[in-house]
């Protein structure tokens, strides 16, 4: 091809253009010159394809596929391709090569392909490839060919033909397939019944209905399955009556439970306005097998009386079905539903209560705030979490207001906690002043809950206020919780190096040691790298408590930037607690750099080991050593095998490093 392109002279190109232009202008049907040329090229490719065997000369497939993909766009070149492929199918090419041709005939094959493919339908080796193409060729002759072949074969070849007739929905196949049903070959019978389900004409239904009454076992079950498909097709075609007849026949037949349930479902679907009554009848019938499908059919367009009746029947159902019905009912925003669901929360069955509580979240409104907050306060486990979720999910105007009013009026601290939690869950911004008031004057239990809620509700503008509250916290627990809240709120600052600014600012105002220590601790948890200098200065302060707070803050630093700080302290500190805290922090920080050059990380870990005074820290080093698997890491771990305090950890590290090497 490349040579041709290179030698393609411009005069010839001009000629071709002129001829093509003339033909197009004159409106004549042009023989596609390119296609003709392509045909010749295709011949070359097909020649090479003749001996194709998978795994041996695969490159030819790429050439072949690319060629056909390129040349099947116009009807003329497509026809040329088809002709060549059909010729190829009759050649002595390998079966694998012929299959590749059939892949393309699946797309471009026309009526012309049918006679060639038809010959291949009856041979075990070629029937699948022939059907692969023929099943998709939109020609009556293809259907006839499949039908003709059906009567001439048996066994697996026949099964394949039946499958194709079914997929093509060949109406003319109904009679021959019907004859196969009652033959001695069970596999063919099953396949024929299946195919008739796809064909789904009234004639096919007739055959299937007769089979249903006469057959047993697998054939009966497959027949029922096919009839269900036929009924669905009728439903789609608005032939509800015909579909209903099929469902009736199935409901009175002895068929497996799953098929029976499907028929029941179909029957309800075809009952139109009577569907509601039918569901009620089923739910009252005692036929428990049908309860689940019936409940699943309760539809959004149920009229009020049907819905009311369904609600009334809820307590009579088995618990399992009550749960299902409650789930369905949660879709209906109607008052009669709400009251029955609320009643179900009192059920003796825990699973019913759980389902009812969940449903309330979808159904309820402001009137449920007190009910749900009380329930959440008095329950535990899934019931409590469902009550809480539902409280958070209640829709409609007035819910947030009801929560705030509830909080104001309730004195029970458990219920108040639930309402505070709800303020957080629903992000009730108007509740923020109430939260601050509770933190200031509320019960201890509620204060903690309110502090937690502020993590979500407060924003940067509240930070100084919360820091002040923290400094005056009534208990250590509250102060700890407030620090967590400050860290969360500071984290909302998108400017990473400004998150600690409010705390630093406060440090300039606060003089007492306790308060300053708390602020340093807070800085350590925020981890704004730009505030590290503040902590470094604190390390030099005379007051021991301040120094202690600074060391602890650095030990908690969440980023790598404090690595050198903690290492320096670990190396020189004569305070054993500080030495341990900072050394642990150093090891943790090394671990954080997982993509560091392993040898460099190992070097840092060696340094940590040198200053480690206890086996705990040595073990910590060995624990992370395999993360930096390299020759140095292995040597370091091996060098510790003799240390009796850590020998088993060293051995584990050696094994893991070696395993990583192998991987």
């Amino acid at each position, binding site marked *: 091809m490349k040579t041709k392109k290179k030698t393609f002279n411009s005069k010839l190109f001009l000629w071709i253009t002129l001829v093509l232009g003339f033909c197009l202008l004159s409106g004549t049907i042009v023989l596609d010159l390119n296609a003709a040329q392509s045909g010749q090229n295709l011949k070359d490719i097909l020649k090479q394809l003749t001996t194709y065997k998978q795994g041996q000369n695969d490159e030819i497939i790429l050439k072949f596929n690319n060629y056909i993909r390129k040349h099947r766009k116009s009807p003329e070149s497509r026809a040329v391709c088809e002709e060549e492929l059909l010729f190829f199918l009759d050649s002595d090419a390998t079966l694998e090569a012929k299959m590749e041709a059939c892949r393309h005939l699946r797309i471009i094959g026309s009526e012309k392909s049918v006679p060639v493919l038809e010959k291949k339908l009856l041979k075990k080796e070629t029937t699948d490839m022939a059907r692969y193409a023929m099943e998709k060729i939109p020609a009556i002759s293809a259907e006839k060919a499949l039908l003709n072949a059906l009567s001439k074969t048996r066994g697996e070849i026949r*099964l394949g033909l039946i499958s194709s007739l079914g997929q093509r929905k060949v109406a003319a196949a109904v009679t021959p397939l019907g004859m196969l049903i009652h033959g001695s070959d069970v596999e063919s019978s099953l396949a024929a019944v299946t195919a008739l389900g796809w064909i789904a004409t009234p004639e096919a239904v007739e055959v299937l209905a007769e089979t249903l009454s006469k057959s047993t076992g697998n054939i009966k079950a497959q027949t029922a399955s096919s009839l269900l498909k036929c009924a669905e097709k009728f439903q789609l075609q608005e032939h509800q009556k015909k579909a209903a007849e099929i469902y009736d026949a199935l409901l009175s037949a002895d068929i497996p439970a799953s098929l029976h349930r499907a028929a029941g479902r179909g029957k309800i679907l075809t009952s139109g306005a009577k569907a509601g009554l039918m569901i009620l009848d089923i739910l009252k019938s005692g036929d428990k097998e049908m309860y689940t499908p019936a409940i699943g059919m309760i539809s959004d367009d149920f009229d009020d009386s049907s819905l009311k009746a369904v609600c009334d029947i809820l307590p009579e159902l088995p618990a399992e079905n009550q749960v299902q019905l409650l789930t369905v009912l949660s879709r209906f925003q109607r008052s009669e539903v709400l009251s029955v669901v609320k009643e179900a929360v009192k059920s003796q069955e825990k699973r019913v209560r759980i389902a009812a509580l969940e449903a309330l979240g979808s159904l309820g409104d402001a009137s449920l705030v007190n009910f749900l907050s009380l329930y959440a306060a008095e329950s535990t486990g899934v019931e409590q979490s469902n009550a809480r979720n539902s409280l958070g999910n209640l829709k409609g105007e007035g819910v947030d207001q009801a929560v705030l009013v509830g909080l104001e009026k309730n004195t029970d601290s458990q219920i108040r906690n639930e309402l505070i939690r709800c303020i957080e869950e629903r992000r009730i911004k108007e509740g923020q002043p109430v939260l601050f008031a509770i933190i200031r004057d509320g019960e201890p239990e509620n204060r903690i809950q309110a502090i937690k809620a502020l993590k979500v509700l407060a924003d940067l503008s509240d930070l100084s206020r919360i820091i002040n509250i923290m400094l005056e916290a009534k208990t250590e627990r509250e102060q700890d919780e407030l620090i967590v809240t400050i860290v969360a709120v500071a984290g909302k600052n998108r400017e990473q190096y400004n998150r600690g600014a409010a705390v630093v600012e406060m440090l300039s105002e606060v003089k007492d040691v306790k308060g300053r220590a708390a602020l340093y601790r807070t800085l350590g948890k925020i981890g704004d790298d730009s505030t590290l200098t503040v902590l470094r200065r604190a390390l030099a302060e005379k007051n021991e408590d301040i120094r202690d707070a600074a060391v602890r803050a650095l030990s908690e630093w969440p980023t790598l930037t404090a690595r050198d700080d903690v290492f320096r302290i670990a190396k020189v500190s004569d305070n054993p607690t500080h030495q341990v805290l900072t050394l642990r922090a150093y090891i943790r920080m090394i671990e954080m750099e997982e993509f560091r050059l392993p040898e460099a990380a190992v070097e840092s870990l060696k340094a940590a080991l040198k200053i480690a005074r206890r086996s705990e820290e040595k073990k910590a080093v060995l624990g992370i050593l395999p993360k930096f698997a390299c020759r140095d890491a292995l040597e370091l771990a091996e060098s510790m095998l003799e240390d009796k305090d850590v020998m088993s950890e060293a051995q584990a590290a050696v094994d893991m490093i070696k395993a990583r090497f192998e991987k």
Partner: protein
Amino acid sequence: MKKNRKKFNRRQFLKKLPAAAVGVAAFPSIVPSSVFGKPGRPAPSSRVVMAGIGFGMQGIPNMRNFLSKDEVEWVAVCDLDEKHLVEARDIVNIEYGNKDCAVYHDFRKLCERKDIDAVSIAVPDQWHAIVAITCARAGFDIFGEKPLTHSLVEGRVLCDAVKRYGRIWQTGSWQRSVANFHQASELVRNGRIGKVKKIEVGLPSGHYDFAGTKGQETMGPPPEHLDYDFWLGPAPYAPYCPARVHRNWRWNMDLGGGQLMDWVGHHVDIAHWGMGWDYTGPVEVQGTGEYTRAGVWNSPTRYYVETRYADGTPMIVAGGYPEIRSGTKWIGEYGWVWCNRGGLEADPISLLDEFIGPDEERLYKSRDHFQNFLDCLKLRKQTITPAEVAHRSASVGHLGVIAIELGRKISWDPKTETIKGDPEATRLLSRAYRKPWQLG
């Protein structure tokens, strides 16, 4: 809990009993161990009896997830590869400390059991439809892997079957049960970026060697432990070679659909979720793909599929184009939201602090994909990724494959699920099955 299970398994329990008591405890041997309540576990009536089909790759982690749930009683495993079967069986037996797990070679035999509530299916794509439809008809609820099916027509048939038999279906598109995907989709759904102008979905490219069999394409007899002909099932016959089978079958277009089909059920699924397109699909699809490799791994290594939905919104689905970032990105009037595994970004960044209130459109919330399936199974409630939803995301991939193959734009009617005015493309909506297999 696990320790309790092992301590009190039935056989060990019987061994420990004094001789006189054994007589009392000597129940008929046909009573399955599942009827014996174990300490701290749900009573048999609230247990979910499960089995698994296909353990070559995703089947094992899926099963382990289910085994971690106390309410699950795993009773059987099924696979066409003896090695996989033994591995799966041993996991179950070790978990329960007994030898009760039944093994099946043929999924149809498994489907004859009456005591099974649900199955987890993780078989190669060419098998998805047949196995799942058989299980649905048997009355099993199903946890099935994505893509839903190997062809578009199969997808519709499978959805209809699931609906017909009233089955609960969960697709392995687990990203919906992860917080960042949920948050991203909810932001988009609630108009936080305004009207969406464009969606970009970045998927992987190339062929990842999952099984270490890359290049092992010398044809030969299959190993004795694998029933290869059965394994091929409805796919066109092809001789055995290691590169074709376990884990890497997905790179062969007769068995899988390459990276596009492997991932469409994840990131396109999320794109649909954000847009509220769970029950529809594109109206136009065109694409290009690079078939760079001859041989068994013949799926496109790089692809670019452009779709357009009924409201005019375009969605690009591409693999191997760095400008289309991996994951799902919705670009709207007021900004964009992007999410991927472990990542959620937005512009403006303040979007990430947005709260979706109770009166807005809150999307289905699940934080445990497997538990969601079990919960829904009991409540007979739709899961977070039901079959229809999976079918719609897979449809985008199927149509992309067709458009790439034909090299032209395809018009698709998502309501009737038909290709408009292109009979050739229509032919590619399904494949003829190899004998003796038939779509049920």
